[in-house]
């Protein structure tokens, strides 16, 4: 068992091919589009933990800072000129006004540095005051970027569902957020530090994908792993 384990240590940069385009899936959950020099992220949910505090649950006020740190690192590493956030960037419509001063300053620096496009999501439907452009959705080089996935679309990239894969192989099992697509619809994992995830085998995903064409790429610690779909389990 597991004879091949150490071969896989050779780090390679997996390429995710979707609807005729090449992307680099990042272990953070971001998807880098070389041809467009664009970093795609979904479901940042800034200020999610802070939004619990007003109900009396004092969750750690550090999630926004962690998410920002991830973004900064990804932008630095990829050299992206543009960032598109596919909705639910803020956990609440008014969350942008609740940012701590230091988080706000970091976010301002970020929006000065690269072109930022904020698509609206169900958590943040209205435009907000953060730098960059707020749009309902976006067409980019023939692909549609939006928040919620739809059935029957082609070339649609979305977030919203927070996909995760659970695999079981030779006595070991791992559950991690993942990219999932069938070459017509691609769903990005949730990027925010405070976001949970839903198994792609759960009812929320029923009917969205053409199963035989399904490709799943899981987020590892320092790399991503395109995995065999026959290892997927529930839970």
């Amino acid at each position, binding site marked *: 068992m597991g004879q091949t384990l150490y071969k896989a240590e050779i780090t390679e940069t997996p390429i995710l091919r979707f609807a005729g385009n090449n992307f680099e899936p990042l272990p953070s959950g971001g998807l880098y589009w070389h041809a467009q020099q664009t970093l795609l992220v979904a479901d940042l949910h800034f200020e999610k933990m802070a939004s619990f*505090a007003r109900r009396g649950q004092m969750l750690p006020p550090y999630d926004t800072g*962690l998410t920002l740190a991830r973004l900064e690192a990804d932008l630095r590493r990829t050299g992206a000129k543009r960032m598109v956030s596919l909705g639910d960037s803020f956990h609440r419509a008014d969350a942008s006004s609740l940012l701590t001063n230091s988080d706000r300053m970091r976010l301002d620096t970020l929006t000065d540095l690269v072109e930022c496009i904020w698509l609206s999501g169900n958590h943040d439907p209205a435009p907000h005051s953060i730098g960059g452009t707020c749009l309902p959705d976006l067409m980019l080089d023939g692909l549609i970027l939006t928040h919620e996935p739809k059935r029957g679309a082609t070339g649609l990239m979305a977030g919203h569902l927070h996909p995760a894969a659970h695999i079981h*192989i030779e006595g070991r099992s791992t559950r*991690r957020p993942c990219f999932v697509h069938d070459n017509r619809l691609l769903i990005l994992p949730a990027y925010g530090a*405070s976001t949970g995830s839903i198994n792609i085998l759960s009812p929320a995903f029923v009917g969205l994908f053409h199963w035989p064409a399904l490709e799943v790429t899981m987020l590892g610690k320092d790399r991503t792993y395109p995995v065999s779909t026959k290892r997927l*389990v529930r839970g």
Partner: protein
Amino acid sequence: MLPAVPVVYGASFHPSLPLEGRAWEGVASCTTDRPPPSFPPLKGEGSEGAEPLWPIGKLGPPVTTLPRVITDWFARKGWAPRQHQLDVLESWQAGASALLIAPTGAGKTLAGFLPTLVDLADGKFEGLHTLYISPLKALAVDVQRNLNAPIFEMGLKISAETRTGDTPASKRARQRAKPPHILLTTPEQLALLISHPHAELFFGSLKRIVLDELHALVTSKRGELLSLALARIAKLAPGLQITALSATVARPDLMRDWIAQPVPGRETHLLTSSGGAPPVLEILETQQRLPWAGHSANYAHQDLYEVIKQHKTTLLFVNTRSQAEMLFQGLWAVNDDMLPIALHHGSLSVEQRRKVENAMVSGQLKAVVCTSTLDLGIDWGDVDLVVQVGAPKGSSRMLQRIGRANHRLDEPSKAMLVPSNRFEVLECEAALEAVAENHQDSEDPVNGGYDVLAQHVLGMACAAPFAADDLYDEVRLAWPYRDLPRKQFDRVVELVATGGYALQAYERYARLKLTEKGLWRVANPQVAQQYRLNIGTIIEEPMVRVRLIRTRGLKKGVQSPVGAGGRVLGEMEEYFFGTLLVGDTFIFGGEIVAFEGLKDNEAYVSRAQSANPKIPSYMGGRFPLSTYLADRVRLILDSPDDWGKLPDQVSDWLRLQRDVSVLPKRDSLLVETFPRGTLNYMVCYPFEGRLAHQTLGMLLTRRLERSRARPLGFVASEYTLAIWGLGDLSGLIRTARLSLDELFSEDMLGDDLEDWLDESALMKRTFRNCAIISGLIERRHPGKEKTGRQITMSSDLIYDVLYQHEPDHILIQATRRDAARGLLDIERLGDMLRRIRSHIVHKPLQRVSPLAVPILLDIGREPIFGEGRESAMSDAADELMREALGSDPI
């Protein structure tokens, strides 16, 4: 012949049975036709030559210490109080608190209440006089019933009422306005009572607290919560005297300190009842082949059935719910005589359990298979045999379980141990010796956690605004918090107020606010409401109700089953259903059922037939082997001269080990390495319990990775740890590229532990409990119930975020403390590493040794820990690559 159909007993019994016939614990039932042998009969009645009831003028207390109405009652019954019952009374009359250590069946309850009856006999007292705290709601209810009988018979004007989660709101309100003389309740209800603004009024008249089964509380967070409540009540009721009742424990002195702490200056007596007859304990003798591994004890079912037949009523204890299910199935498979054998464990519905208990009490059952759910609680009547199936784990635990048989002090309790594998034979032998020596290895009372303290601090703010100085002084009157540093107390107050973060982001949402007078008060009434909904320290796994529906036969594509609304069988951990597909069969409550679907908070199942149903494995319920028994097991292994007392198959096994390898010595650690198939194995024998071994396995694999030994996985049992990998372990050690002394060096509890903690699922589970208890996350919110799954996910995320940013946060500290003692058992691992330092014996072998066989058989039965989660993904990625290249064998 066809196997008998197992039925869970209950349905055919009357739900409520007359209780008048029940014995008041320690005082024989008033309806029996013979005086109980444990009480000397009155002179002139019963047998001649018996000791006189009141040795007036000689030893013992003068009659005048008991009011006439009580002595008359005793006389009418033909009973006499026992010495330790009078001792408790005497302590009370001397103005002291008292800890009474007495075995089950010694009449502890009467001992606890006698001073109250004496004090209230004149009928003049107004208000709450005595508070009785029990770890079990059912026990409080039972004690109340058994208390009301003599109160009634004595014609006393004493009111005794219970207050539990089931008490209706109107009755609670009435109890607050006009308290009964005696209130019987639980630690959680007590916490609620003292958080009430009128607590001062309510407890002002209190004279006595009776703490029942205290040994079961002081080792847990419930005990921490209780200790804090006692500290508050001692302040509200200055004349307070505490009487605690406990089974025999290793350190009664610590428990006495525990009850003395809240009332400084009051004397506290340590009272011990004269011991009963020593128990008669034996190991089941069998002609069957003893299994190498596993926990099912299948080999013993027929033997056990014969034993059950020979006794009146047998209690069969097991360690886990899955073992209970398996044993129950096994006994029914051989139950040719259709004996009434029942099942009792924590997943069965409350009604089901009550029915079994009632049937038990009225003598309708021949045997009950049970877990620790029956460790405590009411007297089970005529149990004449206790059987422990599987590892006994500890001497005190065993003694307490044995005490469930034969509640008469002067007759020996009879018990039998049934090992489920060969290593357990050694453990049973060790337990046999320990019990014969009456050796106690119970855990000591624990120091207090910050999570429980946070809950208490919020509760005290709900009662009234407090000054930090005052509350700090008060909480140190709780024994577990006697050494609490002021700095930590202040951090806990900050935790309650704003989360206690270094980054102070939540001032505007603060739950506690500092008034101009320097008092902490709750910010708004919702805070108090939230507190009341989150009270307590028992965190349940997210559970779903298991409901039996009529048939399978769902139409394809129908998501929710028709025929919903059947009988609820019980509850089961939600995660188990995550592993099931519709149609999968499993055993629950002794029945084979098929999974039909999950809807809202219910799992639908139907009756099914299957040759191979799953048996759910439940989290928890696995106590580690006590350090004391572990040491005795090592001693047995190290003493070949004593092997004669072991069954031949076991001593042969040990002799074979001695011939082909070496035996583990008492004070060293044996490490064997050998190749097997394409892999290399390292097997060591620390005997420190599964939890410590798991942690050791996690840490060793990290180190072996760095040594290029290329480990792949490990499996841990109570006795042994086996790690396997690709590297030639024997060769690495021989050529000094791998040093076992360095590998097992204590410094693994430094950086390696830190690295692992940051991703450990066990740490996250522990954190979740601390976060809920401290009130950081809620278990319930008014009008909006979160599902358990949501809480689990978010608490993992909270841990990740917090651990990365503020690893020194007070809740991370609390989590570390709990993990060190609990799921990770780092404390014990540390002790072991110190003990074996430079005492490692390495034995390279060509093949598996006899002693290593059980643990290798556990691979596949026990969870295996891969060397990292990444490897599962990289294997699945390689597989995908092979699929793509068309080289994957299907």
